[in-house]
């Protein structure tokens, strides 16, 4: 009997320790990226790092302003494409087609979420960039190409989370609205979408996080020129691309600058995550 109790206690302590593994991992990651990047930031100065336009590591110029702007534009462009398409898909699948149809199409879309990002990037290079080059001009590999590819990549995330949010709206809401004489569509945009709002928004924010953090696909399609884009057809380099492109050979201050770029990216992502989880909480509280 005694040994039983001992084992129970032991297991409980072990599981408690394991439960902190993810949190511990997160802190470890934050700590190490900060440790490599912060000395650089204090040396060069945060302002000179994020507002300077010139990135010339050979001559000691480390300004990531063009990359920050590029990352924001690419993410914004991806949202412009991914959010309306994804939400429309989610509404159509949940409210306008019979359940069996939804249960075939939704898994198909989620299955395709598994397509590796390098493949999306490759399609961008082989199919999309030439189309842009011949029909709209410019180099093809551009802000526009990156936005479209990322917009497609985040569709499954947005569709999956939005569908769940819409499905979680109680049926009585819909019945109440229909009983008052509203059509199906009026019910959707006046009742269902309002009730599912915070869930849908958190899906969109998670999609944003995925877009701003995507690396390989963006490296392949964005063109990677370090300059503030004038139009959507310009070649751009994002924060993630900057890290991945130069990490292989960077040394000294250059290397530290790349880790500092990582710090900036990390902060963006943590802000988005906090925002997303705030919306999820709001949803739970209202239920």
């Amino acid at each position, binding site marked *: 009997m005694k040994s039983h109790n001992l084992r129970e206690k032991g297991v409980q302590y072990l599981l408690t320790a394991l439960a902190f593994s993810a949190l511990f991992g997160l802190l470890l*990651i934050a700590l190490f990226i900060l440790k490599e990047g912060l000395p650089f930031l204090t040396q060069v100065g945060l302002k000179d790092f994020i507002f300077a336009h010139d990135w010339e590591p050979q001559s000691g110029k480390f300004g990531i302003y063009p990359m920050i702007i590029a990352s924001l534009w690419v993410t914004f462009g991806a949202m412009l494409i991914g959010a309306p398409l994804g939400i429309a*898909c989610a509404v*159509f699948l949940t409210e306008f087609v019979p359940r069996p149809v939804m249960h075939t199409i939704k898994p198909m879309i989620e299955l*395709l979420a598994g397509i590796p990002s390098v493949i999306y990037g490759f399609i961008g290079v082989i199919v999309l960039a030439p189309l842009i080059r011949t029909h709209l001009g410019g180099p093809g590999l551009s802000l526009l190409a990156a936005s479209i590819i990322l917009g497609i990549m985040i569709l499954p995330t947005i569709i999956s989370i939005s569908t769940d949010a819409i499905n979680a709206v109680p049926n009585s809401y819909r019945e109440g609205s229909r009983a008052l004489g509203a059509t199906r569509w009026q019910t959707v945009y006046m009742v269902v979408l309002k009730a599912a709002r915070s869930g849908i928004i958190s899906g969109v924010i998670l999609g944003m996080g995925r877009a701003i953090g995507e690396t390989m696909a963006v490296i392949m399609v964005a063109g990677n020129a370090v300059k503030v884009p004038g139009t959507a057809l310009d070649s751009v380099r994002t924060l993630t691309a900057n890290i991945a492109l130069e990490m292989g050979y960077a040394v000294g201050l250059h290397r530290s600058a790349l880790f500092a770029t990582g710090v900036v990216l990390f902060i963006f992502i943590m802000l988005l995550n906090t925002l997303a989880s705030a919306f999820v909480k709001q949803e739970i509280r209202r239920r």
Partner: protein
Amino acid sequence: MMRIPAKVNQAAAATVMALATLLTLAVLIFIVVFILEKGLPILSRTFLFSVPRDMGKAGGIFPTILATIILPLLAIALALPLGVGTAIYLTEYTRESRLTRIIRFGNDCLAGIPSIIFGLFGFLFFVTLLEMGWSLLSGGLTLALMILPTIIRTSEEAIKSVPTSYREVSFSLGATRWRTIQRVVLPNALPGILTGVMLGIGRSIGETAALIFTAGSSLRLPQSLFDSSRTMSVHFYILAREGLSTENAYGTAAVLILSVLSVNAVAYYLMHRYMKKNA
């Protein structure tokens, strides 16, 4: 001013949304079909089972297939005990509290971290600080951290959906909490946990950014876990980016897509069966 009748409005909205859905499906299917159409004809026994020559310009992709099998399995072996342990703790050993909220928040944040950051961390911590070098081990550890949130979340869902009555029966027979978990809860949650495992494997197979800086990109057959090796994703990226061989790139992409889709299909099959059983 003329009001548009509600019925017309509805028809227009439904049409627009139907088109959006069709467009989404069409794009995703196009990507798969495009790659398979160009890649499948390249596949042959020699392509799959021989070693690459001339930096991958010629020859097969056998070492990259091997790495694509070893790395995800390594990651699962490391992440599964941690993930399931966390899930058991969160569902069976504690009530909702500030502490569990912090653990969940940490988990959500970890899930949102971009793979390039995992790559940087793996490079600093496993490759450099722990002196593992560019190796399968460094890559596996980095991937494990990356898929941990998926494993935790799916395991938690799976364990939560085991009916309370099962536990009560086990307790009433005199079983301890841990024994109940071992004999009753975990076996019933197994298909759900496996779903998470398959999703984790799927994500690992497709990963590139986190692996380039941790597992490296050696094309040699790995002799031990301390050897560097590139997965199919990394190989495909290098072939495509440096324009080494379009043919071999398409072939590699086809194998890559087929493996990811089949792993994910198994995950969904398990999840579906599981949901039916518990419905």
